[in-house]
């Protein structure tokens, strides 16, 4: 449905159309009533520079740069409270992921107050692509060394406790058919884009 709307448009796609088209399924974003149930339900709302409701108004107004510079999607904790409560059944959490991807593509996340969040995700997926499984020690070390070199000292006791309790691996685990997974992910990247 989302793609159907964009292909049948007589006018040039607006930012709202772009966001909808980049989100799988039908996210119902155009139905937002501005009721504010989402922001009122959001556990990290106080740390966001726009509530989800406000962000959706900015999207409808076509204020792309303002939206993609916002820290809002990066402070979304993916708890789906807003999505469960939205009277218009807007797929709010999915839309936050769409906005994160768009902010990365446009490079605008660097101007938000959550500038290091995308690199955390990128480090995570880099490890998954190489091993097929997540590797907490590698992820934490790389992330902290890059962004909080002093934080390594603070986090080290917890990491050591996790290691000593057998709750963290020293080395990553690689799946057997890592080449198969790499081929799948390479093909996915080549096909790219949303559906």
């Amino acid at each position, binding site marked *: 449905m*989302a793609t159907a709307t964009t292909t049948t448009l007589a006018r040039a796609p607006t930012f709202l159309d772009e966001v909808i088209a980049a989100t*799988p*399924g*039908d996210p119902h974003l155009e139905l937002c009533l501005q009721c504010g149930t989402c922001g009122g339900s959001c*556990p*990290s709302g106080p*740390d966001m520079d726009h509530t989800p409701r406000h962000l959706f108004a900015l999207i409808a107004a076509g204020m792309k740069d303002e939206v993609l510079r916002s820290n809002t999607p990066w*402070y979304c*904790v*993916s*708890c*789906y*409270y807003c999505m*469960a409560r939205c009277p218009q059944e807007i797929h709010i959490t999915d839309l936050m*992921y*769409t906005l*994160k*991807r768009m902010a*990365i593509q446009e490079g605008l996340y660097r101007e938000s107050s*959550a500038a290091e969040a*995308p690199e*955390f*995700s*990128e480090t*995570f*997926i880099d490890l*998954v692509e190489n091993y097929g*499984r*997540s590797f907490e020690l590698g992820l*934490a070390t790389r*992330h902290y060394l890059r962004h909080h070199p002093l934080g390594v000292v603070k986090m080290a*006791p*917890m990491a*050591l*406790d*996790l*290691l*000593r*309790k*057998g*709750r*963290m*691996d*020293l080395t990553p685990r690689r*799946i*057997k058919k890592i080449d*198969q*997974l790499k*081929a*799948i*992910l*390479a*093909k*996915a*990247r080549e*096909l*790219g*884009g*949303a*559906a």
Partner: protein
Amino acid sequence: MKYGYYPGCSLERNAIAYHKSAMAVAAPLEIEFVEVEDWNCCGATEYITVDLLGAHALVGRNLALAAQQPDNGHQLVAPCSACFLNLSKTDRYMLDSPELAEKVNAALAAGGLHYTPGSVRVRHLLDVIVNDVGYDAVAEKVTRPLQGLRVAPYYGCLIVRPGYQGVFDDPEYPTSLDKLMRTLGAKVVDFPLKTHCCGGHMTQISQSTAFELIRRLLKNAADYDADVIVTLCPMCQLNLDAYQDAVNRHFKTDYHIPILYFTQLMGLAFGIPPKELGIGKEFVDARPALAKVGAEAPAPEAPRRKRRPKEALPMPRMPEEE
């Protein structure tokens, strides 16, 4: 009852106690879990942040492998809430969007795989235990009721919301875990924040945001005099348990609430030795709480080190063998 089983990365290590206890209670309940051969990471909340199609292809490989398993009843059980969400989400959106399904399958074809959306039903472990096994069958196995143990039932977010393949409990105020804990003989306290967020990955992105969410949950459980918070997700367990000390320092509070998996409490009530349930892997010592029900839990495996004198040089330590 036979199911496909997708442990996910956390259950291999960080949440090894969850895996051990799940296996320990599955046997007496006559549940057979067949692990998906050579499964890969579900992508957590990170993959989809960067690459939409890649995220669904990553999950698609797991679904395709699960669909190939013989005799799993077309059901795949995930004990981790995030894995449960991601597996069911990809299946749902492949069903909703034929265009996405086509692209995911084009990617999977590069690895010789194919997934027909709708062919695997993804279930959370709690759902299987309360709905397939049932409270009565669980009650029959209880030999050491958890009499007097005050339990705060913590569901977290993803198993009740948004329900990409339907929901098995209320998205705001679920009660299945409450009922299960009562079946074990425990005293279930009211826990109004039972479906609030543990902070997820925010401990890595913005600690103050995450710590506030963790603090709220600990306070809520403490307000109702809970001896233990029982959880069903590795992320919730890690955030509430491993960060409890840091949260206490941050807010100058003094919470000591052990965080156990629901399968660990089931195992204790079934009379399974605590060691076989991974008890002792937790950061916040569960022994005082478990002593109330006469369970002699092993000492935590790594008692907190004495703080070294400031002038001492930091010495490397090797992890002990399991």
